């Protein structure tokens, strides 16, 4: 099943002709709708839930297979890396919104904080680049906590309003700040770990691998780490606390939950993931500019969350693939991609409000039987 999906994805990524891409997309949509119609998806979802570790292993193999197939194709590899890092960022958003119920409309801004962190640190310091990634995460978490500390104590969606304001301010702040390059942005030095430069192609015998392969490996590790973290979080008392306070704050408070503490914890963890992903993304692109981290980009992240199924990491990855890859491959609709996102989100909210892959009931240890 996953093998078919991988082959399909590789075919889609390698297809060049627009008409072929449209045909492939329509075929994919038709298959999914047909499967849903005949009730295959539910059974499939249950099987996946029972054998999640195996599924994870196969997903890694599938990703490696896709990367190996495109070993010298810069463009496709960049696209795959984008999917990996956006997935990490939406996993962060998922902890905030999906679990704790705190809406974050500044996802792209915190992503940008990570990216600018790596731009500044790589330019002005000789900090090891692995630590730069962590610094990006910490700074995004710090900015988020300073921003939301006063607001998270209140009820309702005030936090969401504050994040919208922050998203708008952040872009302006970058544009007027000369140290950070103003509207033109900054160059980011490529990643280098233990003398291994990430921006050179890898030569193995006669085969030359794209330099993006380096970033692909780090991105994949990051995503695997993020999934493990988010999974463990969900399957712990902390995940339960977050669900409890999202669903009924009053009742949660009556049973001893410190609402503000857990909201902030969730927000920090989420922002940390977003910031790390942003820091690596800055190095991958080699360039950061204010226009890459706008409110509109934050909305794209939120739409991935709604599309994929709030609370389900696998759904988020599928949704990220759809949202990132489809507009890139369908150049003809580039200009209308926001329209496309809007239509997708509306369609999902109307016909499948729980998202493509809904979140199953929590099992603390998959396969555990009393």
């Amino acid at each position, binding site marked *: 099943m996953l093998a078919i999906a991988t082959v399909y994805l590789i075919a889609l990524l390698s297809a060049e002709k627009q008409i072929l891409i449209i045909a492939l997309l329509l075929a994919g949509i038709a298959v999914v709708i047909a499967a849903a119609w005949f009730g295959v998806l539910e059974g499939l979802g249950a099987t996946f839930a029972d054998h999640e570790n195996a599924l994870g292993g196969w997903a890694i193999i599938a990703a490696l297979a896709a990367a190996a197939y495109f070993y010298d194709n810069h463009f496709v590899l960049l696209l795959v890396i984008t999917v990996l890092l956006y997935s990490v960022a939406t996993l962060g958003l998922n902890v905030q919104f999906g679990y704790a119920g705190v809406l974050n409309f500044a996802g792209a801004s915190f992503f940008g904080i990570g990216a600018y962190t790596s731009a500044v640190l790589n330019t002005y310091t000789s900090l090891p680049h692995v630590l730069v990634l962590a610094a990006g995460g910490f700074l995004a978490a710090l900015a988020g906590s300073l921003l939301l500390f006063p607001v998270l104590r209140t009820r309702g969606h005030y936090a969401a309003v504050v994040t919208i304001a922050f998203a708008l301010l952040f872009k302006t702040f970058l544009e007027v700040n000369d140290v950070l390059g103003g509207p033109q942005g900054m160059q980011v030095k490529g990643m280098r770990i233990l003398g291994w430069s990430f921006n050179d192609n890898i030569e193995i015998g006669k085969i030359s691998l794209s330099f993006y392969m380096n970033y692909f490996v780090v991105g994949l590790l990051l995503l695997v780490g993020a999934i493990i973290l988010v999974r*463990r*979080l969900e399957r712990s008392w*902390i995940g*339960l606390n977050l669900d*409890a306070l999202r669903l009924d704050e*009053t009742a949660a*408070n009556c049973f001893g*939950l410190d609402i503000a503490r857990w909201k902030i914890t969730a927000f920090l963890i989420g922002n940390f993931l977003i910031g790390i992903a942003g820091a690596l993304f800055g190095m991958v692109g080699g360039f950061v500019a204010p226009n890459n981290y706008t409110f509109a980009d934050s909305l794209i992240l939120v739409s991935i969350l709604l599309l994929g199924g709030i609370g389900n990491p696998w759904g988020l990855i599928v949704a990220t693939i759809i949202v990132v890859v489809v507009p890139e491959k369908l150049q003809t609709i580039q200009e209308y991609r926001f329209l496309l996102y809007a239509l997708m989100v509306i369609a999902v909210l109307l016909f499948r409000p729980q998202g493509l892959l809904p979140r199953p009931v929590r099992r*603390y240890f998959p396969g555990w039987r*009393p």
Partner: protein
Amino acid sequence: MSALLESRNLSKHFGGVSALDGLNLTVAPNEILGLIGPNGSGKTTFFNVITGIYSADSGQVRFEGADVTNANGRAIYQAGISRTFQRSRLSLPLSIFDNIMIGNHKRLNQGLWFNLVRRGDFKREFEESYAAARTLVEVFEPALANRLFEPVAGLPMIDRRRIEICRALIGAPKLLLLDEPSAGMTHEETVNLMNDILLVRERNQNLSIIIVEHEMGVIERITDRCVVLNFGRKIAEGPYRKVAADAQVQEAYLGAA
């Protein structure tokens, strides 16, 4: 006899309406106190003031001798008071086990490191909690004990009540506040539920209960003592038979003769 819970001159106003008007009330250890009165007489408000959902305008609440007036919900829970709600407030998408564990908050290790990294230790605590939840649920409904990982949303009202009571009991409170546990249930279901509650108290002699209830059969059978409220004031107190015969109480319920 020292009181477990004591309220002195407790008052709460909503605009011009006084929901609680200088209420004096005590609960002894291991006592089941019935709190009765017509609709709007201040019974649920009393629960909400004690558990920190509303703050009192004046007066004092003491629990085990300590002043807990206007303490927040968390502190009240930590001190050993837990409650159920008049309209069931379970988290419907979560499983039975999850809902019960919300009530077990103070006994679960909430550390980040413990929850995310030390999964072996976490699993041990999880298994102990599972056993505790299962034992408790078995008292109320053995059939539910095998379905702890099903979502609450699919359960009938009677089972939801049971889960809510289990959620309040799992943390071993000293005082349980039951807000109309029989609402929306048949007579027979109510009888069963009350038997289960009595069974739990038999096993745990340190548990006191305040029960708000409109079904007088329930009150008569399970309470040691009753307090009757009307317009936020106590109008009668004593064993059920005595208060039921009281002229003021009959007037409050049936109107002036």
